């Protein structure tokens, strides 16, 4: 029997969305908290523009790896591709001219393919493989650049301002995000990657060429990082650092984990990473504006990472971990 006159307070669509993406609640809570605590600093167009800028940086770093995390592996090479790519652009500029920017996606593609082949054939845990490669790349960057950041001029048109307060890099990142989400949600590749992530042995028995699709996942990750790095390269000032920074490595991982992609694989993906990146950016900007000690912020970021991993992996029983 239906009770007449009773209206549903919240449409079921929204409840369903909140159930699959609980991070939205965190995002709204953080936003409300910061805007009620210090509206004069937080609710300004300049701050929103900065949030968008930081969001772009995080998302473009985290998009590629989140494809790999779906399969249960980990890809940390993104910072390396970005750093080495920037220096290669500087080196190749006198020879190739404007086309030298294309070296970044090529480097990303080659790195991703290499990682995939080594991981599948030599069976090294992916995190240590990509970490070693990252260190190698950062060493190469420092060697090639001679130890100084090398700014490159001539690509300002990539991030030239079109609309006030709206970073052009954000506009550029939209098609990249859509492409990544499309691949993972609407194509066969995405379905196979989820299958490999949730049960690799089962996927193999079901006739999926697991090795091929794992290599493909790493290659896609490298390619997306490479394309994103073109935009990041100009967005972050036309030069890349020559020194490896732990924050550059950790923040995209926080975005991935916070978005709700468990590191064990089989669920999540780029669509959640976007939410995670937005939440992390709001969290970080809010803390930065709060007059807290800057060192305390790093502490809180680490705590956020730990808490989000613990919450993200809860209830996953019967999983063997290493």
């Amino acid at each position: 029997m239906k009770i007449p006159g009773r209206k549903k307070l919240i449409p079921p669509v929204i409840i369903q969305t909140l159930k699959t993406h609980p991070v939205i609640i965190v995002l709204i809570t953080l936003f409300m908290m910061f805007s009620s605590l210090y509206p004069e600093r937080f609710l300004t167009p300049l701050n929103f523009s900065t949030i968008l800028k930081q969001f772009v940086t995080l998302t473009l770093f985290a998009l590629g790896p989140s494809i790999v995390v779906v399969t249960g592996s980990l890809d940390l090479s993104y910072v390396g591709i970005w750093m080495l790519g920037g220096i290669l652009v500087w080196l190749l500029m006198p020879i190739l001219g404007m086309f030298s920017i294309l070296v970044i996606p090529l480097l990303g593609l080659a790195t991703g393919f290499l990682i995939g082949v080594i991981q599948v054939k030599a069976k090294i845990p992916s995190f240590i493989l990509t970490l070693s490669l990252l260190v190698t790349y950062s060493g190469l960057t420092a060697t090639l650049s001679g130890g100084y950041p090398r700014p490159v001029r001539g690509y300002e048109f990539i991030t030239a301002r079109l609309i006030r307060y709206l970073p052009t890099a954000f506009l550029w990142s939209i098609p990249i995000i859509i492409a990544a989400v499309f691949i993972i949600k609407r194509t066969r590749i995405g379905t196979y990657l989820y299958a490999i992530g949730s049960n690799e042995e089962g996927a193999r028995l079901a006739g999926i060429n697991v090795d091929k699709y794992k290599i493909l996942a790493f290659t896609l990750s490298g390619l997306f990082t490479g394309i994103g790095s073109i935009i990041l390269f100009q967005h972050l000032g036309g030069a890349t650092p020559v020194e490896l920074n732990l924050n550059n490595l950790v923040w995209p991982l926080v975005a991935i984990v916070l978005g709700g992609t468990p590191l064990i694989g089989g669920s999540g993906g780029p669509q959640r990473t976007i939410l995670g990146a937005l939440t992390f950016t709001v969290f970080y900007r809010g803390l930065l504006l709060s007059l807290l000690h800057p060192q305390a912020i790093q502490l809180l970021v680490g705590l956020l990472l730990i808490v989000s991993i613990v919450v993200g992996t809860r209830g996953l029983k019967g999983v063997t971990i290493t």
Partner: protein
Amino acid sequence: MRGEKMMVRLLISQEWLRRNMTTVGSIVAAIAIIAGFQVINPFFLRYQGIITLVYAMSYFLIAACGLTFVIMMGSFDFSVVSLLKLAALICVLYIDKLGLLVIPLALLICVGFGFINGLLFAKFKVPSFMATLGVSVVVEGIALYLSKGFLHIMYDETFRALAITFIAGLPSIFYWAMGVWIICTFIAICMPFGRRTYAVGGNPIGAGLSGINVERHRICVFMLSSFFAGLAGVLYMAQLGGGSMLIGKDMTIPLFASVVAGGTALTGGVGGPHRTLLGVIIITWIQAGMLMLAIGRDIQMVTFGLIALGMSIVTIDRRRIKIIK
């Protein structure tokens, strides 16, 4: 008849060589490195050169012994370098107030963080790499907060004497490192704790079924690793006589490479601290030799990245594992 016997002996020796390939390879590599650097730079094996080599390898060996237990168990501890830094900074910051009591304080704090690592890994089922990465970000934050980013100098002579007293021509930190190495080898080979670590690394489910409390054991191993990281930090501070946030910078990959170069595979269950000595000698002597030849840190990073990559490919036993993430 005789030919057959020869064949059998040859087969046995080939089998022996194949089984001990990592050990033999490490010894050959170590000798080749020493010979190579000696040829290029005749000061390498003079007394002064040896002192440099000993200083470079001692604190490294202590930290690597702890990490070896974790890798033997099939996990990874990213926070070793951060804990080393924190222990060193605690020593230099509070030596005036507490005196030599800072050493147990620093070690206790490190063991506490090791407990958190183990708890996250064993109880909350967070992959060990991510758990320790998160903890290491927190530890770096604490170290930055305490040190304010400045360089601090250690003025306490009794504290410094822990590492730089010369006994029989060698600094005392060398004897500390050798002591830790012998204790670790003893634990791994002769004590139930070490045998359980091998068992958990080889097959966690089987170890659990045969009556080992796997969760508690994992927590203990992470605490052990953190304890040695802290000890390495304390002695490193005594050796250096001062430091800032830059202590242990870019040390993670060489540390990992030295464990793997000794022959402890990432899959767990094989290797051990007794092998790590060789790996540490290979890695730190390459580092020191390159420094003596004035080769910069950037090329060193490339070298160690490639060594870590190559050695993990060589040491992993691919017959046993089906799925690797």
